[in-house]
């Protein structure tokens, strides 16, 4: 049973579809990369998967014991967050909010979970620091720790390395891979870094004028994969 199944999914804004008839499924433990050019609808797909906007038509089904709101989400940073006065601990703790329901305060278990997530992301020593004073890489770790508090099974990452320098980027990819391999997290990552996608991903969904869905090996052998992965590799050298 797959964790997330999309059937004949069309997405877009105001009833106008920008992507039509997507069919794919994501299984537990997948490292699922969504690639495509700018404007191909990657972010729209992300928002639809997170139920932030309704699909134009088609269905998103969840299975394997996954509830719709159990997906952890690493968003791109917003302008507001850059000067938000909040300590690291407060932000990570806010990831537990969906466990609270109408209970006003956090329980001991949730505070332990927060401490664990910070430990895992190696930001425990920053616990009392101010979020806006951290480096870009540290901020991403904080948001990742928050996402870990919100979900145990699936993580959605929206361009997790944009704006990070190469060293921190490599570090970030290592953390994500570790979450996938060691903790069995299902990773869904949006990226325009195709070189990284073909290195780490197990499955690739390429959207744009032509749509491709399959495993990494299939992607590398397909014509669309060859043209894109080829140029991406060229840029790397």
């Amino acid at each position: 049973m797959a964790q997330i199944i999309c059937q004949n999914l069309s997405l877009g804004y105001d009833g106008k579809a920008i992507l039509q008839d997507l069919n794919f499924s994501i299984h537990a433990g997948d490292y699922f990369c969504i690639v495509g050019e700018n404007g191909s609808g990657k972010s729209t797909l992300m928002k639809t998967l997170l139920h932030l906007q309704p699909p134009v038509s088609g269905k998103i089904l969840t299975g394997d014991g996954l509830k719709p709101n159990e997906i952890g989400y690493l968003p791109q940073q917003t302008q507001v967050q850059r000067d938000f006065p909040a300590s690291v601990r407060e932000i990570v703790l806010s990831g537990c909010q969906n466990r609270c329901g109408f209970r006003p305060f956090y329980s001991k278990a949730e505070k332990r979970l927060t401490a664990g997530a910070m430990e895992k992301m190696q930001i425990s020593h920053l616990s009392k620091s101010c979020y806006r004073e951290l480096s870009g890489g540290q901020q991403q770790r904080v948001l990742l720790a928050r996402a870990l508090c919100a979900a145990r099974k699936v993580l959605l990452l929206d361009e997790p390395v944009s704006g990070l320098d190469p060293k921190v980027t490599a570090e970030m990819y290592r953390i994500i891979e570790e979450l996938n391999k060691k903790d069995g997290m299902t990773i869904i990552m949006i990226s325009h870094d195709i070189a990284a996608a073909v290195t780490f991903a197990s499955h690739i969904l390429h959207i744009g004028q032509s749509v491709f869905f399959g495993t990494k090996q299939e992607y590398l052998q397909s014509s669309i994969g060859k043209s894109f992965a080829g140029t991406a590799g060229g840029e790397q050298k």
Partner: protein
Amino acid sequence: MIEKLAFYFQYPFVRYALVVGALIALCSSLLGVTLVLKRFSFIGDGLSHVAFGAMAVAAILNFTDDMLFILPVTVICAILLLRTGQNTKIKGDAAIAMISVGALAVGYLLMNIFSTGPNLSGDVCSTLFGSTSILTLTKSEVWLCTVLSIIVVILFLLFYNKIFAVTFDENFAKATGTRADLFNLLIAVIIAFIIVVAMNLVGSLLISALVIFPALSAMRTFKSFFSVTICSAVLSVVCALAGILISILAGTPVGSTIVAIDIIAFGIAYLIGRVLGR
């Protein structure tokens, strides 16, 4: 000076002014942090102009109790404004500016055409600047304000964590199953209540200042959301009390004195922030 203060404290209106001023300062500063961070600094100004417009309409229609008309209108406007924050064609600041200026103009126009009182510009001035109204409070108004403040503080405490989550990252909160819309609605309703009540008591100029200044000052010097909230509440109450006392002693207008003290406090906070290198 102490004697003079003791002399003034014999009068109930001085005590009322202090109580009400402190309570309104407390409530508005609690939500001020959220509003400033959500880029809604001007909502106090906007909504008080809406309330002013509604008051004009209520006066013309000869409602016996204008509150019953002003409050719903302001609450609806607050909800509309805060809802449109994210994904609309007219962005937050433009929407506030539009509603604020529009309501002010229409209100003044209506009051002018259907002139009800002999001293129109005086009425308008006291509504906007609250020149003396805080010194003419009745006992029932003080009670109303006390009860409302207690409700606001309790709501804020109960929903503190949720307000933080929704303010910091609305999309994340929504995606992980927090009912962000509901809490946005709650914030809008609370702020509308505070503004309507406070406007009658202290005037609309003061509300905006009470919402913005303590929050901004606290954000200069403190690092966590919790400490910013506490600092802004304390600062706001202290400045309000100091402002009222000074205005009584020096005979200056209450609202403007409080705002002037808030400005000084902001300057000090800014300097402290610079010295600490934040």
